[in-house]
């Protein structure tokens, strides 16, 4: 399954997305990191250096990677803070991370990530630790920055609503395996993998409040469990004998993309 960078989304075993980058040779990785690809993580507090000002942390990226002089780099830091919606950026630039709220730290982290104008921004659970109204701010910010910088976003999240809002394509993962990939409108409207479908059906949604949820039975496997066949098989309503024995190959979805299921739910199942 090819991973499409343009607004693509990974969910499930989120570490895999990171591992891909970490598996590279250290030198290649360092060159990639920040120059063409930037990462923002869920835990903004530990991603920021507590001992230097937020402004310097942005400027430092420009000084190290682009050889920009300090004064100019600091001026750019103010611009970047302003771009990410931080009020009074020329004061904020001299503040330390602990003086920022959770939402502000996430914005500061985005500002650092944007300093080198990456082609790809990897956002690893960027809203998970945030409150609802702040999460809405950050998602809107990411969407507008994507337009402005013409960059792609790889959003790693367990939040299907955030995927619906931000992503063009989606890759659904379970227990470290790719289950389904495709255009987000098609995957959400006509999921062909039983896991995708079950996940969507089990989610409480505001537009259908009060509706009984279709719960997925069982629990996610622990990372140490090695499945022979399909990892979702123990919890799957459609599983047959073959699912226990063989990992299903990825086959094409009816509306583009791929699905890895022996009994992929084709168009007719939706009749």
């Amino acid at each position, binding site marked *: 399954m090819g991973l499409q960078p343009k607004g693509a989304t990974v969910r499930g075993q989120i570490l895999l997305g990171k591992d891909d980058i970490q598996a590279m040779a250290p030198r290649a990785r360092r060159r990639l990191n920040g120059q063409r690809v930037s990462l923002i993580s869920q835990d903004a507090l530990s991603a920021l250096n507590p001992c230097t000002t937020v402004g310097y942390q942005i400027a430092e990226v420009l000084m190290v990677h682009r050889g920009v002089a300090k004064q100019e780099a600091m001026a750019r830091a103010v611009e970047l803070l302003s771009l990410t919606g931080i009020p009074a950026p020329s004061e904020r630039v001299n503040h330390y991370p602990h003086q920022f709220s959770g939402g502000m730290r996430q914005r500061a982290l985005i500002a650092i990530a944007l300093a080198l104008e990456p082609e790809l921004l990897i956002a690893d659970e960027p809203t998970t630790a945030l409150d609802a*109204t*702040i999460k809405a701010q950050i998602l809107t910010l990411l969407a507008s920055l994507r337009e402005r910088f013409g960059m792609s976003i790889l959003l790693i999240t367990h*939040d299907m609503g955030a995927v*619906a809002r931000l992503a063009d394509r989606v890759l659904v993962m379970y227990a470290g395996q790719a289950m389904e990939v495709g255009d987000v*409108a098609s995957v959400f409207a006509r999921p062909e993998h039983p896991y995708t479908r079950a996940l*969507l059906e*089990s989610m409480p949604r505001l537009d259908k*409040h009060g509706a009984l*949820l*279709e719960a997925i039975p069982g629990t996610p496997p622990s990372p140490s469990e090695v499945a022979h066949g399909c990892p979702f098989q123990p919890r799957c309503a459609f599983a047959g004998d073959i699912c226990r024995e063989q990992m299903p190959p990825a086959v094409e979805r009816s509306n583009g993309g791929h699905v890895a299921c022996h009994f992929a739910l084709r168009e007719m199942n939706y009749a």
Partner: protein
Amino acid sequence: MLSLVHSNDSIKPRSEIPLLETSDLTKTYSIGGGMFYEPLQLQAVSGVSIRVEKGRTLGIVGESGCGKSTLSRMLAGLTPPTSGSILLDGCDVTGLPNAERKRVLRDVQMVFQSPYSSLNPRMRVAEIVREPLDVHMRSLSKKERDERALSILNRVGISREMARRYPHQLSGGQQQRVGIARALVSEVRLVICDEPVSALDVSVQAQVINLLRELQRSLGVAYIFVSHDLAVVANISDDIAVMYLGKVVEYGRAEDVLQRPRHPYTQALVDSANIPDPVLEKSRKPRILTGEIPRPTDPPSGCRFRTRCWMAQDRCAVEVPALVRRGNSPQAVACHFA
């Protein structure tokens, strides 16, 4: 005094005395302070008046720090209120002597966010669930108490075999089932669930929500269901109270609050909930609040929401809006202009 929610024209027909009713419930914490400093006053819960009907669910939603857990703990008798009253069956429990209050509040149990840390790690599941009976129902024989514990465990989907295990041998979802069984094992009438699914894997949350709904249907127990997640609260609640910085800003029947939110904060909260429908999500323009929640030790004067409100006027900085109903509106709103 303006007519508050719990006065004559309440949200639901006033057929009988509600199971639980609070009036102006307030909790103030003193934080910091020392020899040379005045301690800061933090009003975690400020003048909250809610009511819970028998066998129904009141959802309480709001962002972190708005006072949901403090309110929950006061209602469960775990934290004494600074002022205000809690009426159980019309009887004010805040005024009762300690022993009497404990006896009355036995009907009210709590389910916590973190299932593991709320279960004794050195006890087997069956013992954990039996414990409340060992304390309060000594009239039953040991065998009867065992049977009762196993029977409620069975109802929440924990087998006899699993009941012999220790909490750490169970998954998060199973631990939460045990927490629910423990809350329901004695003759409980109100269960306060404080973020009961927030710590669980998304694929397991629906199991626990459905279980709570099923148990309510069969046991007739009432819930106060607390969560920061509006979609989760919306799924299970008959009524919803929306909190912001310690205050209830909107209160009414779930469908009214969700479909016709009137307080600007509720409107923003409804808008910020993403629906897993890519076409809808990409076409709608959600109202995005500016700024962040102010420090609770220094809340804005007047309306606490005014620093983030797009409708705020001068009056909002001086006058605290009361939670009232206007005209024929079915829900109560604390806003001068809603």
